């Protein structure tokens, strides 16, 4: 090809059609440019929203590619509990999912669950970090404590967990019913943590069997993750009888296979997850259970699906009413006097405050009351000097660092967030902070993110940046679940997992917002052929030749998932 100008002297010299006979590289169109494209991988909204810091797009797209073991290892970077979270997490990732605008959010929790369940019996090998000589005591074997211990072990530190109950797991063990989280799943995930080298001492209550000061003295750091253990009192007349029982106590008994110890017609008071869990568990025990909540469905703090399932199972919720007096005859409960409520001005939580309607009292028949109107902490294990400087919680920053020497805290005891996944994330961040303190290093701003995402510079791709021309409007897949008539008779797990075919179908729906899967659209569409593919460089997939890029932006427009941004040339 000629790079010199061509002069035609006769029509005979012309080509058949109006095609260039010279080389267009002489035309350096880059001089037209006032903006230029940059390939920038960004963090998807799902990953950004995950309380545990999971790289959601990462594990979903690996699962879509059939790389389940890689997906498992990616999850292992952030959580030891994918099987648990895949079942009980209220999945805020799905709320944020951009796919919601095109067929429904990706069923992320079912994908996570599939990956976890696939390796449940035989997890891939995981090695602890090289031992640093440091040893951390963890108080509480709930999701925050075990997550912290797991990550500490991965970072090379020894971890010993002190658990007051006879079995490890904390609220996962005693607070979540088997029909949501089968004990085998929890056992397997805890087994994996123990196999990594974490020591768990059960039946050892700090403050009783071992003192807090002993721990501080013996260990290099202490992570307190004792969670919510105490139920708030009902605050109604006559609420001090044996027939008024905390919901978490009833759940604990049922979960540990003990007699629930309550009557046949229980009234559950409250609108949170404990209320839903205890009511549905008692239903499965053949009890004629109902729920009373002082506000409306809209204000209920419980996970929406759990409320739907409870209602589907035929449990009635009385809204806008609250108990004022427990009625007994001859020491035996006959009913609960309740008062109707109406909603007033919003309170500190932003929800509208319930206000009693005078003279509206009425009686609900019941032979016992289960309280589930909120839980709080028990900080009795702390020495008096520390106890004096705490309120309901142990004040800690988001990395679990407290004002007290060697003491870190996380999970519900620090933030009261109330979800398993938030606790897992808190435990991991504390492990990162403890590791940094041991090594005398600062903690990076984005330490809470999965290591796979830390290099990224952009955050939370909005739906508007997704080019929907490249995605089919496919519906979200839902795995099957037990029929209501079957599930109310047993504690068997309600929800099933994905089949292999469902998994593939669902994972492949993922837009993979902000993560470049090398689709080649930019390479194909560039009208100046200014984008080339880079070989042998894992971190760079495409190269823009700025001598020819005229800044048209077609590459950015045709990028299906927002991996190219146009920046002004200065």
């Amino acid at each position, binding site marked *: *090809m000629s790079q010199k100008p061509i002069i*035609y002297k*006769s*029509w005979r010299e*012309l*080509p*058949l*059609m*109006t*095609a*260039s*006979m010279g080389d*267009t590289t002489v035309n350096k169109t880059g001089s037209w440019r006032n903006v230029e494209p940059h390939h920038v991988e960004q963090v998807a909204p799902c990953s950004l929203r995950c309380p545990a810091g999971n790289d959601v797009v990462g594990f979903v797209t690996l699962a879509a590619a059939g790389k389940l073991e890689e997906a498992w290892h990616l999850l292992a970077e952030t959580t030891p509990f994918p099987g648990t979270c895949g079942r009980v997490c209220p999945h805020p990732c799905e709320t944020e999912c951009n796919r919601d605008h095109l067929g429904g959010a990706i069923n992320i929790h079912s994908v996570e669950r599939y990956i976890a369940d696939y390796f449940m019996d035989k997890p891939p090998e995981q090695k602890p970090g090289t031992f640093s000589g440091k040893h951390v005591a963890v108080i509480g074997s709930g999701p925050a404590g075990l997550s912290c211990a797991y990550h500490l072990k991965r970072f090379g530190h020894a971890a010993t967990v002190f658990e007051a109950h006879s079995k490890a797991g904390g609220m996962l063990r005693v607070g979540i019913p088997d029909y949501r989280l089968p004990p085998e799943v929890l056992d397997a995930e805890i087994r994996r943590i123990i196999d990594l080298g974490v020591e768990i001492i059960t039946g050892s209550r700090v403050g009783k069997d071992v003192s807090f000061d002993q721990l501080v003295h013996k260990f290099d750091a202490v992570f307190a993750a004792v969670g919510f253990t105490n139920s708030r009192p009902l605050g109604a007349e006559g609420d001090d009888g044996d027939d008024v029982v905390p919901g978490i106590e009833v759940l604990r008994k049922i979960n540990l296979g003990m007699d629930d110890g309550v009557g046949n017609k229980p009234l559950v008071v409250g609108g949170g997850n404990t209320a839903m869990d205890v009511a549905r568990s008692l239903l499965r025990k053949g009890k004629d259970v109902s729920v009373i909540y002082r506000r409306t469905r809209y204000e209920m703090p419980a996970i929406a699906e759990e409320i739907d399932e409870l209602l589907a199972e035929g449990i009635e919720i009385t809204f806008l009413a609250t108990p004022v007096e427990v009625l007994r005859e001859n020491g035996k409960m006959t009913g609960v006097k309740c008062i109707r409520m109406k909603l007033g001005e919003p309170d500190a939580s932003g929800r509208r405050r319930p206000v009693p309607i005078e003279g509206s009292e009425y009686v609900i028949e019941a032979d016992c009351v289960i309280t589930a109107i909120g839980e709080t902490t028990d900080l009795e294990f702390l020495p008096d000097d520390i106890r004096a400087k705490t309120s309901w919680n142990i004040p800690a920053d988001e990395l679990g660092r407290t004002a007290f020497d060697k003491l870190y805290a996380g999970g519900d005891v620090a933030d009261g967030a109330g979800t398993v996944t938030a606790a897992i994330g808190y435990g991991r961040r504390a492990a990162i902070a403890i590791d940094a303190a041991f090594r005398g290093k600062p903690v990076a701003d984005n330490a809470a993110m999965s290591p796979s995402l830390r290099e990224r510079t952009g955050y939370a791709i909005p739906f508007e940046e997704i080019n929907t021309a490249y995605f089919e409007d496919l519906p979200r897949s839902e795995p099957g679940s037990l029929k209501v008539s079957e599930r109310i008779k047993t504690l068997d797990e309600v929800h099933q997992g994905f089949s292999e075919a469902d998994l593939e179908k669902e994972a492949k729906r993922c837009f993979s917002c902000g993560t470049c899967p090398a689709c080649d659209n930019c390479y194909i569409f560039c009208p100046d052929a200014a984008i080339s593919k880079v070989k042998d460089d894992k971190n760079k997939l495409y190269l823009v030749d700025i001598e020819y890029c005229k800044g048209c932006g077609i590459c950015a427009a045709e990028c299906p998932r927002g991996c190219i941004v146009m920046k002004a040339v200065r």
Partner: protein
Amino acid sequence: MQKVLTGNQSAAWGAMCAKAQVVSAYPITPQTTIIEELADIVAKGLLDAKFIKVESEHSAMAGCIGAQAAGARTFTATSSQGLALMHELLHWAALARLPVVMANVNRAMAPGWSIWTDQNDSLAQRDTGWLQFYCESNQEVLDTTIQAYKIAEAVNLPVMLILDAFFLSHTYEAVDIPGQEATSKYLPPYKPSIYLNVDDPHAFGGIVPQDIYMEFRYKMQLAMDEALIAADKADDDFKAMFGRGYGVVEEYRLDGADYVLVTSGTVTSTTRTVIDDLQEKGHSVGLLKMKMLRPFPAEKVRKILSGRKRVAVLDRNISVGMGGVWSQEIRSVMYHLPEDQRPPIYDYIVGLGGRDVTPEFIEEIALDLEKRPVKDCDQVWIGLKE
């Protein structure tokens, strides 16, 4: 193999025999069954082609242009408003020298809405640089589709073959389908000399400065001149191989005839029977069938018509403000003959909007031609409700 096919199916089967590799089309009555048949043929695997559904005729032609530029043999079909919508890209295909083949089913333009035949849609595209062939029978439609590729690819210009709405498009006839092997021999695979090819890169369709634009157009004119020869050769070769030929024009019982009726499309076959009847009654009248409009077979027409007493052109079209298009074309090529060899040429407007052109009308024209004063030869409207 003989099959009973409609004219539309014949066009589809023609494209199949020619092994079109890309079909890019949009449906419109009365063309729809062409692309339905082709979609079916492609879906059944009888034709190894990519069938592209598009959102308009403009895109249909754009699809053909892109595919043809990439070196594929392409086919599309349309009609009337659809052809009009393609107009810009008809120029593009021709000026880019891409031998696209298209079937157009003649349908009158709207408004008033019509789905019935007349030739205004295709005649309005006369100056786009496409070759145009008007067919008389279903067999001719199929054969012309195959021939069209042979001619188009020989001269690098696109070809439009034309069939009348309903009279051909939806009417069944026994049609002989040439064998695949013989067709492949007649029409070898499309091998363009220059096309979108990463191993030999060129930029296509870029700006052409003032100093060479005319030269590109001159080359197109030369290609049209070549097409006169290529069309005859394609027809001769076809006849040698398959036993059927049509000619770009056809003389029917013209020996010694003083008066000549000139027709195109399906009006021709009706006229044949009228000529038979009139000759039997002693009238000296014959028929000239025009198949090819572009390139215009000027020499052949001059030779056939010179020295006749009078010529009647049956125009199933009207260039309002001037008259029938075929008559203008014929008058203009006859003009520079010596005056004594130049017959008066009468323009009869017939059958617009699909109105039947009956044997009675045609006979009326033939008899009118013998006696009408020469000064009244422009625009004689036949069958008009006065």
